[in-house]
């Protein structure tokens, strides 16, 4: 049975990775699972300098999901390269570094800094709904998507994944713009902007007022967007949004995703990603699937 998949020349032992921001740099979760089982670890977004993030409360539970407005707190690229990368490099898994920024220059600085590091890919987050500048501003206009993609591509020595926002009218337009800018892979979806009001305190449940909705509640939206995008672009897609089981992951793969990320589910089960890998293998055994590639985009 073959579970290997290929993303822009990078071969993953299986299509399952962790979603940025839900898994840190893997350190904490390594006490719960062997990171070498994962197709790849996608790290928390990292910027050129440390970011303090948003005030608390930063999260709120909602039915079948959660809102978060962490605000991309991160220790900055220097600490990340000195501390987190050497840790991850001990494992037999691919390393995908998620990059955030406020300006094009910020993104480019991080991308250049990563060029000489021993990583496998970069994922550029142009879709974070929780920071005032940068983030989503780059992800909601096709011209901006294409421009930032090509700026990053000019500097990157590793394959570039552009992470798209679902908070747009037409996901296909954004996907095509990223492809035109030279993106090697697309990631979707990031969180959907939402709000929760605490009726007892008569205030917003999270300090930032709005937050990004994730978890099983958003899965049908994500599957639909992955499907539509897969019909419209030639580059591979990493699908995510509410994956908590192998069945969920397989929906994305059948809809056209070459790989999948497990995010919010890590919070209810720290071994969620490993369980998804086991479940995909069971499914392949049960239905006598020789190669996982037979499943990718099999539902037209």
């Amino acid at each position, binding site marked *: 049975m073959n579970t290997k998949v290929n993303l822009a020349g990078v071969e993953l032992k299986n299509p399952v990775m962790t979603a940025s921001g839900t898994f840190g740099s893997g350190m*904490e979760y390594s006490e719960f699972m062997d990171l070498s089982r994962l197709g790849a670890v996608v790290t928390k977004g990292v910027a050129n300098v440390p970011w303090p993030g948003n005030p608390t409360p930063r*999260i709120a539970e909602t039915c079948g999901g959660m809102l978060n407005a962490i605000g991309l707190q991160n220790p900055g690229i220097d600490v990340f390269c000195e501390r987190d990368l050497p840790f991850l490099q001990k494992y037999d898994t691919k390393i995908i570094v998620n990059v955030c920024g406020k300006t094009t220059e910020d993104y480019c600085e991080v991308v250049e800094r990563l060029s000489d590091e021993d990583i496998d890919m970069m994922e550029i987050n142009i879709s974070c709904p929780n920071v005032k500048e940068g983030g989503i501003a780059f992800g909601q206009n096709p011209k901006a998507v294409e421009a930032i993609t090509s700026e990053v591509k000019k500097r990157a020595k590793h394959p570039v994944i552009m992470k798209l926002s679902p908070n747009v009218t037409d996901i296909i337009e954004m996907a095509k713009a990223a492809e035109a800018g030279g993106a090697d892979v697309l990631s979707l979806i990031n969180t959907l902007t939402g709000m929760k009001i605490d009726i007892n305190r008569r205030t917003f449940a999270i300090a930032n007022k709005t937050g990004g909705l994730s978890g099983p509640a958003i899965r049908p939206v994500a599957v639909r967007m992955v499907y539509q995008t897969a019909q419209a672009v030639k580059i591979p897609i990493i699908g995510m949004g509410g994956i908590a089981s192998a069945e969920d992951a397989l929906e994305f793969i059948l809809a056209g995703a070459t790989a999948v990320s497990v995010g919010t589910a890590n919070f209810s089960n720290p071994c969620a990603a490993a369980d998804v890998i086991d479940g995909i293998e069971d499914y392949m055994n049960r239905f006598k699937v020789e190669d996982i590639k037979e499943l990718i985009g099999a539902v037209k």
Partner: protein
Amino acid sequence: MKTKELCRIISQEMIGPEIYSMWVQTDRIADQARPGQFVTLYSKDRSRMLPRPISLCEIGDDKKSIRLVYRVAGEGTREFSRLRSGDDIEVMGPLGNGFPMEEAQGKRVLLMGGGIGIPPMVETAKQLSGDVAAAMGYRDALFLTEELSRCASLYIATEDGSVGTAGNVMDAVRENHIRCDVIFACGPKPMLKAIVDYAGEHKIPCWISMEERMACGIGACLACTCQSKEVDGHSHVKNKRVCKDGPVFPASEVEL
């Protein structure tokens, strides 16, 4: 490897208005746990994805069980309160750092708890020997007073004045002229603030247990941060993770 465990509930009873006490069977957590640490509980209803953090109230003498005392605050804790002995519950832990018991060795310790900050003080009191005072603040109805008075001189404050000092824990400390060399406290923020001010005034070393909304519970997601006075060694900003770097912090390290 650490795991989330499926644990058997040994017993569950209501010990106060909307306050429940649950003994859970788990050798592994009981064996490793320290006072002031917490566990996370998981809902069977998958529409509630996030863990509920609950402090360790007691560790069984045989080190095969833990006691959790919690208030029904919403749907998650409501679900837990309906479980009966023999039912299962998913538990992860022990999590966080716990109280620095070595700092209390041979000293006059004052434990201060308010509301649902009272439960962790029981195991803490049990594991301290010598001169231990406990000042506990209740809204009205009392709970865990028997357990606390067994291992500490217990002073009670009630908001309605029905028992002990009328007012809060600080009123009880002043009224009873409690002297101490070190303070361990857990409770709502305004109470912690008053305690930290008092400790600062009297130059008493003080540790406080903080509360924040949690998602991962293990230090990965950065949901549960509190503000630190200095740039933190892990985050490289003035933020610490309550679930991993805490929940117990030296009062001098965090902003309230």
